[in-house]
């Protein structure tokens, strides 16, 4: 029962990646708890930065050259470009401040904790098979995806939902880096481009939504159902 002997230390690379993984998780929870759209965008940028650093660490320790390139693209797109676009959007749409949540935040947090446990158990058989140095982080990557999903569910406004979507993609990217040392470059670039285009299209879409409904509250979408009203 007693383990008073010296605690075995893990190799430095694993420690660093674990650190990044926990930061990812932390940011995911912070996004879940955040009430303000502007802070949400900052958090998203930070998540991108962590992702990039993680990429660099994995690249450094495994010697996969193309991962440096992914890190570069991540910084370019997710830390700089997308947050700028989003900032522009919320300034134009004048929705910088509070977002209403559908469920109160402590309850959401508890649900988040349960999701993390679930995600970890989901990843357990896969990560036991994986031989990579970063196998423990797969559970966290899935958790980040699920938490982002949860955030999309609990937000009423459209912009946080887009950020949730982007955060989900971050989680997938993190899973890819940690489980298989990154996707093939072509796929990765394709996804990045898709995301960029997606956000641009959504931005345009928002303007139209606002023109039509005079608000970005998705409550108004409820009118778009088939009923005799």
């Amino acid at each position: 029962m007693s383990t008073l002997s010296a605690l075995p230390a893990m190799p430095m690379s694993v420690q660093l990646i674990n650190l990044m993984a926990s930061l990812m998780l932390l940011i995911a929870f912070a996004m879940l708890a955040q009430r303000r759209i502007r802070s949400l965008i900052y958090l998203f940028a930070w998540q991108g930065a962590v992702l990039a650093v993680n990429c660099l660490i994995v690249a450094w320790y495994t010697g996969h050259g193309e991962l440096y390139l992914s890190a570069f693209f991540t910084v370019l797109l997710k830390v700089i470009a997308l947050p700028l676009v989003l900032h522009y959007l919320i300034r134009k749409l004048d929705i910088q401040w509070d977002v209403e949540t559908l469920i109160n935040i402590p309850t959401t947090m508890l649900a988040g904790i349960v999701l993390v446990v679930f995600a970890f158990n989901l990843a357990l058989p896969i990560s036991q098979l994986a031989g990579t140095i970063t196998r423990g982080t797969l559970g966290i990557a899935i958790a980040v995806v699920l938490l982002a999903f949860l955030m999309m569910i609990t937000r009423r406004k459209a912009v946080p939902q887009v950020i949730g979507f982007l955060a989900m993609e971050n989680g997938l990217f993190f899973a890819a880096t940690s489980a298989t040392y990154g996707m093939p470059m072509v796929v990765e670039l394709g996804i990045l481009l898709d995301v960029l285009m997606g956000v641009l299209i959504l931005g345009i879409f928002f303007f139209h939504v606002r023109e039509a409904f005079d608000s970005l509250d998705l409550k108004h979408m409820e009118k778009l159902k088939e009923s005799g009203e």
Partner: protein
Amino acid sequence: MYLLDAAPAVPLDLILGVVLFWLLIGVAGVLRPRSLRFVSRLLFPLGAVGSVVLMLAALLAVRVPPVVAVLPLGLPDLPFHLRLDALSAFFVMLVGAVALGVSLFSVGYFRRGEGALPGLLCLQYHVFLSSMVMVMLADDAYLFMVAWETMALSSYFLVTTSHRIAEIRRAGFLYLLIAHIGAIAILLCFGVMHGGGGDYTFDALRASELPVFWASTAFLLALFGFGAKAGLLPLHVWLPEAHPAAPSPVSALMSGVMLKTAIYGFLRITFDLLPTPLWWWGVVTLVLGLMTALFGVMFAAVQSDMKRLLAYSSIENIGIIFAGAGLAIIFHAYSNPHLAALALVATLYHCLNHAFFKSLLFLGTGSVLHSTHERNLGKLGGLIRNMPWVAGLSLIGALAIAGLPPLNGFVSEWLLLQAFLFSPGLPNPYLNMLVPLGSAALVLAAALSGYVMVKFYGVIFLGRPREEKLNEARDAGIWERLGLAWFALGCIVFGLFPMAVILLLDHVSLPLVNFTLSAAVSGNSWLLFAPVAAERASYGPLLLLLGITGTLLVTFVAVRVFYHGRTRRGAAWDCGYPEQTSRMQDTAEGFGQPITQIFEPFFRVRRQMPDPFSSEPVYAKTNEDHLWYWLYLPIARANERIASWIGLLQHGRIHLYLLYSFVTLLALLLFMH
């Protein structure tokens, strides 16, 4: 001990003797039912003597091997089988210990002209006590059910002592109803365990090899049946109704011991009669227990009737006990005897503690009720000055129930938390992450019970009297004080000497989970207490008390020596508003308000706001139980609807009824043909 070696059946004989003695006392009470002097000055003290014998005999019996006996009573072919093993002896001891204090208290408690005749009360009281002992001793399902039903009925009569009040009749009916629904489940549980062969002795039930499905069914039925008796969610509704309705000594007995008979039955069936449990049984029990604990403590925090508050607090404690039992089942299912023993011992320890501190507080409310005729917290206050004895002894109970060291409530919660802290070692990955979160629920319940106790004690005993008449309140008499002091003593002793209690409980846990805690640690001294390993965790209540009181005295003396002891008296600061009255103190409702605000979804809150222009503004707020509306009322309505359909048959004309009988007869004849 030599005596016991020669005749191991001595404790059982003694216990049966006490049961007989109690029944005789009860009958004697009926002989002179109107004489309060005879009943309360002679019979109740005699009953108390009986409980001392019972307690000591059971204390001996915990340490010796099980003894069986067959009484040639009951139906011709179904004699009563009795068995006294460590588990039943422990619970019998609980009955004896609580009965001692309550009987002593009752000597001074019952007054002329209150409720039923004293002699009748004496009979019901002693039958109630005897039936509880018989529940613990029963070794066959038949005797168990007979004793169980006797217990339910006698306690029903005790609850409805003041049966002229409609509300009390209603509470009694609700109690009887749920007790019987529970009893049916227990009966079915025995039926399932029986499996169609053999007889209904517990030996036969133990031997019957149940398939997993039927074992699980039996477990769930047991959980339902005993849960109904114990007040487990969602079958708790009778508790906050019945406890305030009963006279205080009876509330103390019901809360202190009767709820424990349900725990006894649950442990007996789960750990003894059924085969090795499955892990999810434990999870179900644990989750239900934690939910019950949180529910109970939240509702306790918003009550304004002092006995209802205590009743909800009982629900909380039952929740904690079930959570401990659930944890023990989980560890047992994963065959980890050490931790199973830890959790089980914590559970039993909490049973013991709850019996003492809850009885103490219920009796304390009884004394308050007698001298003030007031149960509503909003009309009490400041009693510490007129009732110093009751206030002082109740303080011990309140601190113990709030789980504060060095009193007893803390020890069991500490043990239970230690068991929780080990759960990350479980082989199931879901459990080892989610069970630790459960410990947070337990701590929340324990911390909120501190809140509840500050409210309970502060509003009743502290502050200024909220009513004029409270200034005439007088302290309890010597018998009542004796009863209270006995329980307070228990709270202190079990808190300061946990090792002694553990050594006793080891005898109980050994046959159930094949492990004793004291075997694990050899270096335990009476001063320090480490249930797992000294470097893992240890707790020294005596040392703690010594440290605190030592510092306290040194500080006191030092302040006097280096400075002075000058004191002046003045009026309390009125915050610049001199027209304050004592009615402006925080009320019980006010004290509960933050809890309703934070945990609002758990309550069905109804507020009645005054009109802004009203000259007599009324503000009213009720916190009701969602479950009552979600579960009980729909069932009641469905029941009524079915009953009204059946009611169509009723016309009041004899010839129609004859026609029904005739048609039934014809149908039966046709069917038989």
